[in-house]
């Protein structure tokens, strides 16, 4: 295989449609006779439903139907558990999954209570006001510590507490680490992650075709295959009767893989019942409540260290807010638990978490998926230790890095994919060196910073390390086919939300088949085009589906060469596949186009040899034994205004190792976007709930996504340690940019404001100018 495209910054195949307004997004689906759906959502967080009366709504002009939970009959069922608990000894898990419509009880603001179907969305929303609901309001469970007290109300009446899960994982013997320790540092850390807030909200369009006995669902999902399988089962249909299409999706970042959202369950049912196509598009206010969040954890963590700053052991006990239901199992807190260990040698680890039900929207993974929380705890513990022992923050990290000869490195605990947490490959120290070099660490700390401080400027530096578990199983597949016009079609089952799959998968196929990358047409997210798959999550698309595309393309290449060798009566070794044709080496005029070979492989008459498969196509699958572990270091220089706490990022460096790179341009874009979301998480975005579970800032005017003025220019560099777990050597990169930004902010701000001297420690994320004002005012001696 030549590598004309693999590794090159190939411009994207999908751009033209997106740039000219021709790409199909969910709200662009227009069908004859389509009706529009609006949901009545709870305005309180915790209540018992006494009665619901939709009779007035049904009288309104343009209203076609109104439904409550009772109307759903046997179709009303709690949703499936997406990720069962991993096989960890002694695990407690109380499965309580979301329901399509609240029946007896409401468990969070925004939970749907009733449905209106009308001739337009305007009329449907008008009719929501006609529904009369009587509620008995209950005290809301909001604070995760209060939630575990004996006097707390219970989110789920059939449980005797608000415990969703309890998990302990250990490695080595923490007690003996304590016995040997020079110092033990103990702190309480709070980390809140916010909402993914893609610019396109969610939506569902369902069309039941009674004549064809066929259901078509357009859905902004990251996992169309599982949506099809689940809905087919719920609707009493076979999988072949249901087609799920994830069209162009305007950003996902995790919450669009959650299933089944109530709207996904309701719309197909309504379409069957009314025999009309129906559409629901989430509005931005709904998005703040109806789409899943990530939110907060509280860690009581301690680290035992030797006098030279080497980690002897870590003990961590944390609480995790899972929201009103726990359909995604333990993925987020297990990611926190596992990713805390980072790129460091931690001989002893004792980590226990309790996941807690609250009367707040459901928590499922959002870009990073709990990894941020763990990385924050580890990186802050290292900073505190460095300060205590008077070791440079970069140096203490270096001393603890896993050495290059220790891979594969076993962490002895279980990861989210049920496999032991084992790092496949890595070479961590050069990544740190490269980052320190790029940011000019020594120059800044030794010369520039003292000089600027003397001028009265408040500048500080931070450096943070992390690992990212990526590319987990189970598997993905791809079907590669040469069409009679010579163009190549690639279909996979994953969904795509801007990751550039139309280009990166095309690059892989184009190299194998010797065609131009623009002659490869990639289809993702249409279950009629590719039947099997798991979905786009955990930075796995490029790794798992990419390798399946490579394997299927390789098989098609072999078929093409075989057919051509038969046609030319020559050895395959004498053939070359390039420029869309197979030629005999050294005889330029002697060639057959790939399209011609494809046509010959599908003869209209005559006999074929036994075992012959028609066409130039292949479907192949790839499933890695476990996830591939990427790693990176971020470094940043900031300046703060000591009065307003306005923050300006002067330099931002990312050095990252995600194995072999398919397309460095797309990779850079993924890192840029991740960092931007990390910056939002660290300093601008905070979900503010009151004690009744009301979200006080549910608008984009109040919940602050970073703009072009807050996100700085980023300087990127890479090292390459291929993964041994897949033939292409790829590791995932989708979440890397977002993971270490919180601790980086805390460290750099502490340094800029010289907070150590004021006995102020930044032990929480998100920070903000107002929060810094509060923290520094409260400080002793302030």
């Amino acid at each position, binding site marked *: 295989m030549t590598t004309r495209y693999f590794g090159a910054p190939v411009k994207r195949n999908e751009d033209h449609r997106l740039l*000219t307004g021709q790409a199909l997004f969910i709200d662009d689906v227009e069908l004859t006779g389509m009706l529009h759906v609006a949901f009545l959502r709870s305005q309180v967080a915790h209540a018992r439903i006494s009665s619901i009366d939709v009779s007035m709504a049904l009288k309104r002009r343009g209203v076609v139907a109104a439904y409550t939970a009772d109307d759903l009959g046997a179709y009303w069922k709690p949703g499936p558990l997406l990720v069962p608990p991993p096989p960890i000894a002694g695990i407690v898990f109380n499965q309580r999954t979301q329901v399509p419509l609240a029946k007896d009880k409401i468990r969070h603001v925004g939970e749907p209570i009733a449905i209106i179907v009308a001739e337009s969305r305007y009329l449907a929303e008008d009719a929501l006001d006609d529904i009369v609901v009587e509620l008995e309001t209950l005290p809301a469970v909001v604070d995760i510590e209060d939630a575990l007290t004996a006097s707390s109300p219970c989110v789920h009446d059939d449980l005797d507490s608000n415990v969703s899960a309890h998990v302990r994982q250990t490695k080595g013997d923490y007690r003996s680490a304590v016995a040997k320790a020079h110092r033990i540092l103990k702190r309480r850390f709070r980390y809140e992650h916010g909402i993914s807030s893609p610019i396109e909200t969610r939506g569902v369009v369902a069309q039941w075709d009674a004549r064809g006995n066929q259901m078509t669902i357009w859905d902004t999902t990251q996992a169309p295959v599982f949506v099809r399988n689940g809905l087919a089962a719920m609707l009493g249909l076979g999988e072949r009767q249901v087609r799920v299409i994830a069209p162009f999706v305007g950003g996902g970042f995790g919450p669009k893989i959650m299933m089944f959202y109530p709207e996904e369950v309701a719309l197909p049912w309504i379409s069957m019942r009314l025999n009309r196509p129906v559409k629901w598009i989430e509005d931005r206010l709904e998005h703040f409540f109806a789409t899943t969040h990530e939110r907060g954890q509280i860690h009581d963590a301690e680290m035992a260290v030797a006098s030279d700053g080497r980690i002897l052991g870590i003990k961590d006990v944390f609480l995790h807010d899972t929201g009103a239901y726990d359909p995604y199992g333990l993925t987020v807190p297990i990611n926190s638990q596992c990713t805390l260990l980072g790129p460091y040698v931690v001989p002893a680890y004792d980590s226990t978490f309790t996941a807690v039900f609250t009367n707040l929207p459901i928590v499922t993974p959002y870009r990073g998926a709990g990894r941020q929380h763990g990385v924050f705890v580890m990186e802050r513990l290292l900073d505190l230790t460095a300060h205590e022992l008077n070791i440079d923050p970069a140096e203490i990290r270096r001393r603890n890095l896993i050495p290059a000869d220790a891979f594969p490195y076993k962490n002895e605990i279980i990861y989210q994919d049920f496999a032991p947490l084992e790092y496949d490959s890595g070479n961590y120290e050069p990544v740190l060196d490269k980052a320190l070099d790029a940011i000019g660490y020594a120059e800044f700390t030794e010369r520039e910073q003292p000089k600027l401080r003397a001028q009265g400027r408040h500048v500080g530096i931070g450096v943070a390390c992390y690992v990212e578990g990526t590319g987990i199983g189970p598997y993905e597949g791809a079907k590669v086919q040469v069409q009679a016009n010579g163009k190549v079609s690639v279909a996979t089952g994953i969904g795509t939300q801007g990751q550039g799959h139309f280009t990166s998968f095309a690059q892989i196929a184009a190299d194998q088949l010797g065609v131009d990358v623009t002659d490869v047409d990639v289809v993702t997210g249409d279950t009629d085009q590719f039947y099997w798959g798991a979905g786009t999550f955990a930075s796995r698309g490029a790794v798992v589906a990419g390798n399946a595309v490579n394997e299927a393309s390789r098989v098609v290449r072999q078929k093409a060469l075989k057919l051509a060798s038969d046609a030319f009566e020559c050895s395959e070794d004498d053939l070359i596949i390039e420029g869309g044709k197979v030629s005999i080496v050294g005889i330029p005029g002697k060639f057959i186009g790939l399209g011609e070979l494809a046509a010959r492989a599908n003869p209209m008459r005559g006999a074929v040899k036994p075992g012959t498969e028609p066409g130039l196509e292949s479907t192949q699958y790839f499933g890695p034994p476990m996830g591939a572990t990427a790693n990176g270091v971020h470094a940043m220089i900031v300046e703060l205004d000591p009065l307003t706490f306005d923050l300006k990022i002067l330099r931002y460096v990312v050095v990252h190792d995600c194995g072999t790179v398919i397309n460095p341009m797309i990779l850079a874009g993924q890192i840029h976007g991740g960092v931007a979301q990390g910056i939002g998480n660290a300093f601008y975005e905070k979900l503010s709930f009151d004690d009744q579970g009301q979200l006080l800032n549910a*608008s984009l005017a109040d919940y602050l996504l970073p703009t072009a003025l807050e996100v700085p*220019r980023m300087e990127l560099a890479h090292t390459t340690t291929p993964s041994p777990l897949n033939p292409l050597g790829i590791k995932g990169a989708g979440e890397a940019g977002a993971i270490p930004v919180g601790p980086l902010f805390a460290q750099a701000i502490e340094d800029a404001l010289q907070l150590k001297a004021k006995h102020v420690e930044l032990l929480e994320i998100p920070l903000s100018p107002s929060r810094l004002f509060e923290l520094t005012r409260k400080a002793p001696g302030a």
Partner: protein
Amino acid sequence: MEPDLHDIELSVNGTTYRRSVESRMLLSDFLRHELHLAGTHVGCEHGVCGACTVLLDGHPIRSCLMLAVQTNAQEISTVEGLSADGGKLHPVQQAMHDHHGLQCGYCTPGILMTMTAFLRENTAPSEDEVREALSGNLCRCTGYQNIVDAMLAAAETMRASMP
């Protein structure tokens, strides 16, 4: 309650449309669902994200904050009109492609409309000026850096082709 309808006539991308619309219909919904110009996207419907930006008589506006009836006798430009001549991309579109200035592409039409208007006013912007002009459009995918680079490059291309 009977719908409160008004006859309007407006020009969109040079084509004249006559329609009868309800007074409450948003311009964004009118463009997308009545005229089937779905390239204009809706992100927040409260005027913050900028995805629905179109040009009204040459000036960028949020089509989610305007009613269709208010555009009677006015001229609107949308993303569908940017590369109308034979399908060749506008320099701003081309630069976005060249610099990987879009990922999911949902915010892109609004950014294209905001920035084409800006680059007409300011033909040689600094990076800070581009960032300021872009700051009313939210993008959740790109971190803006490649969009900023695309706009600086587009400005240069447009200057080079000026008479």
